[in-house]
């Protein structure tokens, strides 16, 4: 995409405007508030990723074998959703504190793509895999297709977590020399210096 073209340029203007707001400046400049937001984001990991791991390990047949799969998802899902709300809320505020850099971060963009992949996997699980759950609710180990979806879920969320941690590192920032594919993927030519 060439500099100044349509949507990309508009988004860049928005990010710059977001960074100029009083709230963004306050978050960015308050060291303790920013660290507390990161802390709350990590608590979200414990709740969100932690409960997902427990459900996925059950679907792999490796955890809580006495509990039927249906009870596992029904009883644990509300806590996973609570964790997601906490993650999304603190994540949005962390983005709001550093919008321009984060928007052009290779790792942030990979993380968003991975979250979309995780959502597709969840949709697939509910639409296809879970349809005949009555047959394997207490079967150990669960059928291969169930275990596969659970392993994919665990793998994607592990990758999301690692990509999230990498956002804090500056190796792939646009203001340093980068290989062509990073310049393209992170739209570095659009990024303000």
């Amino acid at each position, binding site marked *: 995409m060439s500099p100044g073209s349509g949507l990309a340029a508009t988004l860049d203007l928005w990010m710059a405007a977001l960074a100029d707001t009083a709230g963004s400046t306050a978050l960015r400049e308050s060291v303790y508030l920013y660290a507390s937001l990161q802390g709350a984001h990590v608590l979200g990991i414990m709740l969100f990723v*932690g409960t997902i791991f427990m459900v996925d390990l059950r679907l792999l047949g490796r955890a*809580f074998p006495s509990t*039927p799969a249906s009870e596992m998802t029904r009883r644990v899902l509300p806590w996973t959703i609570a964790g997601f709300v906490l993650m999304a809320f603190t994540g949005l505020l962390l983005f709001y504190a550093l919008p321009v850099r984060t928007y052009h971060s290779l790792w942030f963009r990979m993380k968003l793509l991975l979250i979309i992949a995780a959502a597709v996997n969840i949709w697939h699980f509910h639409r296809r895999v879970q349809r005949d759950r009555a047959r394997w609710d207490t079967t150990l180990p669960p059928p291969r297709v169930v275990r596969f979806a659970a392993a994919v879920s665990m793998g994607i969320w592990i990758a999301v977590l690692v990509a999230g941690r990498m956002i804090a590192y500056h190796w792939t920032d646009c203001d340093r020399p980068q290989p062509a594919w990073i310049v393209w993927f992170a739209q570095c030519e659009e990024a303000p210096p």
Partner: protein
Amino acid sequence: MSAVCQLFQQAEQSALGQAIQHSAWMMPALQSLHLLCLALLGGAVLMLDLRLLGTGLVSQPVPVIEREARPWLHAAAPGLMLTGLLMLCSEATKLCGNPVFWAKMAGLSVAIVLAVCVRGPLARRDAPSGGLTHSVAVASIGLWAAIALAGLWISVS
């Protein structure tokens, strides 16, 4: 300099401490592994604490949930300690003078004592319930959350 800080300094100056400090990828790798183990610990701790509070996986008795959560707790805890120790080595001298680091270690000691000496034995009993059980579960959740929060505060204090 105290004896403890001298020991910390030696850890930092050791080949391992220097290797982590001068490597570009080891710190993010250790942090990522630490977070992964933290997620696993969070899930395993929460399954039992929720059950102690009378919610969560209620179709099974408490001792069954305790027994089935334990392997994942025992996988997460050494992983957290090992990655934590390696990260400690890379900036031990700085951390020795950091009050938040020591607060985290104190909280961690209390949490481990609570888990091993109170929560575990309590959960292995037949059908534990009532005020004490609920207090132990709330204290467990609160302590682990505070310890995780302290981890982020170490970096800015």
